[in-house]
């Protein structure tokens, strides 16, 4: 499963209470509030631990999320856009997080830039549904994926730091 640091971080994210998906008109706004509360808590927790690494925001009805995530490698910051839709079956199934600009650069991705989570993720999510929310998805899904894939992509030259890229273009 996830490493010790991830596990500790996850254990500090507040669990959600409302079992409702976007089709549940009455309860979804409440669930959405809980999602924001947990996300705010998680980001603040990351900041406090000097490990701030993503931002997310949603459309008004909370069904489409966009944001950025970044990864520090050898003192350089690599930033990526991220996006996902909340599926109608949420929170029983997790959303499929996509990092579109990395589409086609790694085998650990499905078409459309959807990241391929480890075999541990699905059981973990299923066992903890509906108490896990989007903050847990970030911590257990996207976080570990970036930690493995980004250094690999950099070493293979598939991801180049933006400033270096600019320098190369100027030449």
């Amino acid at each position: 499963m996830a490493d010790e640091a991830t596990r500790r971080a996850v254990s500090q994210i507040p669990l959600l209470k409302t079992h409702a998906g976007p089709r549940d008109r009455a309860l979804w706004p409440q669930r959405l509030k809980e999602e924001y509360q947990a996300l705010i808590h998680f980001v603040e927790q990351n900041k406090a631990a000097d490990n701030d690494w993503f931002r997310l925001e949603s459309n008004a009805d909370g069904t489409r999320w966009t944001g950025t995530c970044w990864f520090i490698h050898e003192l350089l910051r690599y930033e990526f856009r991220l996006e996902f839709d909340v599926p109608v079956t949420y929170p029983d199934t997790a959303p499929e997080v996509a990092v579109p600009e990395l589409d086609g650069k790694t085998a650990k991705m499905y078409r459309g830039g959807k990241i391929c989570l480890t075999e541990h993720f699905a059981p973990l999510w299923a066992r903890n549904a509906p108490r896990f929310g989007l903050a847990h998805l970030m911590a257990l899904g996207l976080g570990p994926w970036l930690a493995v894939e980004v250094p690999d992509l950099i070493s293979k030259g598939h991801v180049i730091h933006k400033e270096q890229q600019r320098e190369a273009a100027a030449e």
Partner: protein
Amino acid sequence: MATVEELKLRVRELENELIKCKQKQSAAEDAQSQELHRPKIDKMSAEVVDSNPYSRLMALKRMGIVDDYELLLFDYDKVELANMNRLFFQPHQAGLSKVEAAEHTLRNINPDVSFETHNYNITTMENFTHFMERISQGGLEDGKPVDLVLSCVDNFEARMAINTACNELGQIWMESGVSENAVSGHIQLIIPGETACFACAPPLVVAANIDEKTLKREGVCAASLPTTMGVVAGILVQNVLKYLLKFGTVSYYLGYNAMQDFFPTMAMKANPQCNDRYCRKQQEEYKKKEAERPKVEVVEVEEEVVHEDNEWGIELVSEVSDAELQAASGSVPDLPEGITVAYTIPAESPASGETVEETEQSLEELMAQMRKL
């Protein structure tokens, strides 16, 4: 020198132009081959002659294997064609949506089939509503539901979305899939309220007898073997024909282990504790219908085998092969040999810890706070 952005734009323009060229070319080819294709047939002939494209099917009827063929022409509209056997597509179709390309190819094979394609992700709010509407209204006869929904998708979310739709609508469907290591697959018939739905148990897997520890997962998401897909697709379509044309025994669950060429079968009752409330509702309705049904003949009811260590609430209705059942005297396993679950879910959620607190803040305030972080 042009910037990267400008070059990207130019590439996109050229790509679009290429797609248009390809489409034009294939349209021209179509027109050319039009003479090779027969026109649409309004009424099927029962004649067993070579000029009748359905003569072999009629022969099947005469042999007494098939006794009802009225439902042969069913429409495809709700089938997700993404990641169906890729051999099906042709190079010149690159750039077209898969549903569009599939319709194009299938129409050439059989002009008698009516098609309706939707190129969208069924799991999002907007599309799901439309998806449900087409299942319940998109039958050959307008306003009637489709006869059967086939699930040929490649991920859990999409299967759950189909499951949700079919449970709500009481729509019979068949699920199919190939494992991520591409060496096993399955098909499953789901009759809401009667047989186990996709949410009644953790995902079932056909054991391929590969030591998971030796399986190298790093570096790739999923393997793909068109032959495994082809076999599973063949089994699925065979089951569809048996179901629609009413011959033979329709399989409730049929697995395919490509490593050993082993085909485990079973049937599973719906789980009264299923997470999907529409599944539970359908079960209630099924029970009522069963109770109301006049008992014309005495049906021998087999004693239900409920296992004490039944962790997943799975109940076997019957072994598909009666011979197997008789041979297997003594304890019957919860799942037959060769079928297992991907994971188990404990009755109590293991997640413990703090939950989100009550808040006075409105959703808008929370959104604003998140943006300001």
